[in-house]
């Protein structure tokens, strides 16, 4: 802070919003390319969503990784190989704390500080106003670029269910401990990974469990042939097989491992594999088969003590947990800066680069069929390289921007996905990384 003449002008420094996994990797990769970085974190520690102490953290006591360790770790800082295939969320936090310490990131993070507004300036920079979390005086500083890594799993998307319910309704966000399930009659709403995890925990604790899903999904097991399923799946992806063939192989694999779940009353999937976010849960079929979980259709209404289901059936749970996902939220940015549409979804190049503002990027706003950390890492590398290229060789930067503007959307974004609120930023990690790779190679200094 002492090297700039004007305390409020951080000149070439970059501002990073959030010190969760995405923010930390952004800070690290920017520092690596020689940028000065100020990172603002509303909490008093790193870890973001993975820090269960944070009020916005969605993790629950029993949460483990859905993707295996090798698909989740940062590509240049592996998790200890003595850790299990699917580490516990507390291990993920330990990992992020180690990452921050190892690369000395903490000294670049301003803890307990919230970004309340960020406004582009005429010269292509940013005016960022920060404030102590929960109030206090604010101050405004100028930065050369703004990297948003505020996470997308903290603002609960609550389903709009008409009617009044006499029992308790909670979003999965508030679900922490299976103790709340003990001895209750529980309805879990939502067929994503969280919904399935909670349904399984409920099956172990509650007296009665209903699991409501809108559609049938492809429930993949966590292990195939004794190996983490995502590692087996990538063996197929490696060969660049056509999607149709992969879908056929996926259907075969699910049939041979999980088997046919319609026998338990689940609807058949209404879409092909790879058209929705993969649901990986080996225990759900087990508890379905033991009669501990009753699959039910969509919830249509609350009515006093009862919940009404599509098809007219009425059930009487005393606790309803809605695992219906989260919405991305950027309250410190004018919506047009990220081309946010009426559904609150930003439209970004590679889900990363703002289309109209070359010094604005978002890290970690993707939902891959693998861990997010590796993608966030390479996004950060690409953003850092981009910001450097703009500074060192504006002419080349313009050429890269021109080329990128014609990169076909379908090459990096899953276009064919089920029509739902939570699949718009679904990406195939292989296609996505290949696109980032080609962008990175374009930005290489020409020899």
């Amino acid at each position: 802070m002492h090297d700039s003449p004007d305390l409020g002008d951080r000149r070439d420094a970059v501002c990073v919003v959030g010190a969760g996994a995405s923010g930390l990797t952004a800070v690290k990769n920017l520092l690596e390319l020689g940028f000065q970085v100020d990172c603002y974190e509303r909490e008093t520690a790193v870890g973001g969503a993975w820090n269960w102490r944070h009020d916005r953290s969605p993790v629950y006591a029993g949460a483990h990784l859905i993707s295996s360790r090798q698909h989740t770790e940062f590509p240049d800082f592996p998790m200890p190989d003595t850790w299990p295939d699917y580490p516990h969320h507390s291990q993920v936090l330990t990992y992020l704390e180690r990452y921050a310490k190892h690369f000395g990131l903490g000294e670049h993070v301003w803890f307990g500080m919230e970004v309340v507004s960020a406004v582009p300036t005429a010269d292509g920079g940013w005016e960022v106003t920060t404030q102590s979390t929960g109030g206090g005086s604010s101050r405004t500083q100028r930065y050369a670029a703004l990297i948003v890594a505020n996470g997308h799993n903290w603002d609960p998307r609550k389903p709009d269910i008409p009617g009044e319910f006499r029992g308790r309704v909670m979003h999965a966000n508030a679900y922490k401990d299976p103790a709340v399930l003990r001895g209750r009659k529980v309805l879990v709403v939502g067929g994503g990974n969280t919904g399935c995890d909670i349904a399984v925990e409920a099956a172990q604790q509650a007296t009665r469990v209903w699991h409501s899903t809108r559609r049938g999904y492809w429930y993949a097991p966590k292990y195939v042939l004794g190996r983490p399923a995502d590692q087996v799946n990538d063996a197929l992806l490696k060969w660049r097989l056509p999607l149709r063939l992969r879908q056929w192989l996926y259907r075969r694999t699910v049939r041979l491992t999980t088997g046919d779940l319609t026998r338990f009353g689940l609807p058949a999937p209404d879409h092909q594999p790879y058209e929705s976010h993969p649901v990986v849960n080996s225990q759900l079929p087990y508890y379905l088969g033991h009669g501990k979980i009753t699959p039910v259709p969509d919830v249509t209404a609350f009515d006093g003590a009862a919940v009404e289901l599509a098809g007219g059936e009425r059930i009487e749970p005393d606790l309803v947990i809605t695992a219906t996902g989260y919405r991305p939220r950027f309250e410190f940015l004018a919506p047009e800066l990220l081309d946010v549409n009426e559904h609150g979804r930003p439209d970004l190049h590679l889900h990363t680069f703002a289309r109209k503002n070359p010094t604005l990027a978002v890290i970690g706003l993707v939902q891959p069929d693998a861990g997010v950390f590796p993608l966030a890492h390479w996004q950060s590398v690409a953003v850092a390289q981009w910001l450097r290229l703009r500074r060192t060789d504006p002419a080349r930067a313009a050429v890269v921007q021109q080329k990128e503007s014609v990169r076909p959307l379908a090459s990096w974004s899953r276009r064919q996905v089920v029509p739902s609120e939570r699949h718009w930023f679904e990406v195939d990690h292989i296609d996505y990384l290949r696109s980032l790779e080609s962008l990175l190679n374009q930005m290489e200094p020409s020899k």
Partner: protein
Amino acid sequence: MTAFDLMRFEDWTDPVRSAEREVASLLPDADEGRPPVLFVPGLGHGAWAFAEHWLPHAAGRGFPAHVLGPRPGGDLRALVHDVVQTAAALPRQAVLVGHGVGALVVARALGRYPARAAVLVAPVLDGWSALGSALRANPGGTLPALVGGRLKLSARQLFGAGLPAEQAGEYLARMDPRPRRELLGRAVPPRPVGTPPVLVAGSPDDRVVSRKALDRAAAAYGGDPLLFPGMAHDLMLESSWAEPIDAILDWLGKQGGR
């Protein structure tokens, strides 16, 4: 050098299995904030080769010093994996120092771990060239290995005249080189991630790594080798072992930190 390495199918589909790692550490009395140094021994050499002089010397100069013994029977990929795992487990960004084939392992590890800095000491990046040198310096010990027999290293190959024969014999008795086919070839090292400063050090009188091979290795990292004339391949066991490690630590001191 290869460019960005995003697609890692081998690691995603067939990760290296974990194995117990032999790590010896010596920490300075007071932590002065210097980066940890991780030594990686080469073919036939165990952690002892660094524990002898360089490890205590580095610790004495205030660097937390660690040495990783090679995994028995491990292939190159497993050795690289172990270096990256060990480095990432250290509390701060580490400096990697590899010797001989250990330098090849370090060169590969640099593609996977953003080291603070790296030093390649008498690096065997070019297996064919090293084989040629070995055949010249030690035909009797090398030839059998080419037809499936045991490789026997010789004092003439590794040590200078300054080292007492008795001491050299003792070192040789502790060596058990098990070369793998994959070492033959001219390795194209990956581009280091995080662009660390890389120093290549060696001796023009090394009977394993020729001066030419040394120059090529240094050129691959955009520099010239730091030379210690008169020394043999095992710089860390020679009687004048202090000279290169002091020069290396001086160099490290000059790199500064981010």
